[in-house]
């Protein structure tokens, strides 16, 4: 099977800009609002998300294709996927703690948050429903993670401003954060046609 690099690039670019997980698909909103206060936390969380997304796809795609579908057990998808992701995150945490303590120190605290992150479960389920092959699935996961990273970093910058701004009392805290998220999301609407024209086949 030959890899179609143009197609893979198109998938990655669409996942980053057009179907951005946070800003267009509303997945992973909790960490987007919770961990985006400081730039370094946002970066750490996003790197952990990219890593787990790739790993989860690498495991769940073969499970779905070679185990669930041939045995007519598609209905078990949700249970199997969430369990695999939960086990995987635990395993990564243990391995990192044991062998790469430096990395564990910087990423470890974000890992438990990822088990119940809908972006990770979302990307594995969407890869199946979109009918992607393995390479396309990996590309989509990488792009989605990268999109999450981009949204987090941009929003961390925006938030530094909103934290200090003088908002009306009832808008202080979360509401003003959400309204500024709306403006960031609106800016991403502009990418819709661009990626199709540049990278579409």
């Amino acid at each position, binding site marked *: 099977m030959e890899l179609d690099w143009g197609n893979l690039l198109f998938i990655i670019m669409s996942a980053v800009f057009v179907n951005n997980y946070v*800003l*267009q*698909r*509303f*997945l*992973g*909103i*909790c960490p*987007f*609002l*919770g*961990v985006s*206060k*400081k730039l*370094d*936390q946002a970066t750490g969380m996003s790197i952990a998300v990219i890593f787990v997304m790739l790993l989860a796809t690498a495991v769940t795609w073969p499970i779905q294709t070679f185990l669930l579908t041939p045995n007519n057990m598609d*209905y*078990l*998808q*949700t*249970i199997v*996927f*969430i*369990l695999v992701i*939960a086990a995987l995150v635990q395993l990564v945490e243990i391995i990192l703690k044991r062998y790469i303590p430096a990395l564990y120190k910087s990423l470890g*605290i*974000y890992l*438990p*948050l990822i*088990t*119940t*992150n*809908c972006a990770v*479960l*979302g990307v594995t*389920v*969407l890869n199946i*429903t979109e009918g992607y092959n393995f390479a396309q699935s990996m590309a989509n996961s990488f792009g989605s993670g990268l999109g999450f990273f981009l949204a987090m970093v941009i929003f961390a910058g925006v938030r530094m401003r909103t934290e200090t701004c003088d908002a*009306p*009392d*009832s*808008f202080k*805290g*979360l*509401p*003003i*954060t*959400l*309204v500024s*998220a*709306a*403006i960031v*999301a*609106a800016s*991403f*609407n502009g990418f819709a046609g661009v990626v199709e024209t540049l990278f579409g086949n």
Partner: protein
Amino acid sequence: MKANNAPSKLSILTNGIIKENPVLVLVLGTCPTLATTTSVSTAIGMGIAAAIVLICSNILISLLRKIIPDSVRIPCYIVVIAGFVSVVQMLVQAYFQDLYNALGVYLPLIVVNCIILGRAEMFASKHTVGESALDGIGMGIGFTLTLLVMSTIREVLGSGTFAGISVPFFSSYNIPILTQTPGGFFVFGCLIALVARITHGKVKHAATGCGNCPNAAVCGKIGKEA
């Protein structure tokens, strides 16, 4: 009804609707709230599906609360919730094909809806079966009502219809951006601000957006370490 003769039971039921509204006060389950409120019908479908899972998982987790060892409780909750989500998913696919297509990936994602895991952890694991069921019903109604309010705002102003029926005046002057992503964030932010204004800050919502999410402890740790 049990709820009518015991005031404390009644308060458990109404708690979820107003005082501890899962979406607007506890700020849980933001992803489905933002994603499925583009139209009234999908919002109600999502609300009811999540409410059914919430009630069933609350009851079962409350029944099992003495059997489940503390150290593995979160994985146990996830398995229970995932089981009910699969059941609901199959029912919706069998009887409401249109809704199934409209909800798409958000239906299996009820598994990671933090309202359900949050209530399992905060309430069902500590209370009796009856109370947990009432809490599930109250929270479910609160969630569905909030989705209804938000989707009404977004659909009427955004596409000039209510549950697909054209609304006079609004159908000729609509603001399409409200049905898109930015509108979701904007309406949600304004609704939370409105609740804060009405309650005069008496009801304190979670500032981080993690709310009563079982992960909030870890989130808080991140905030402190930095």
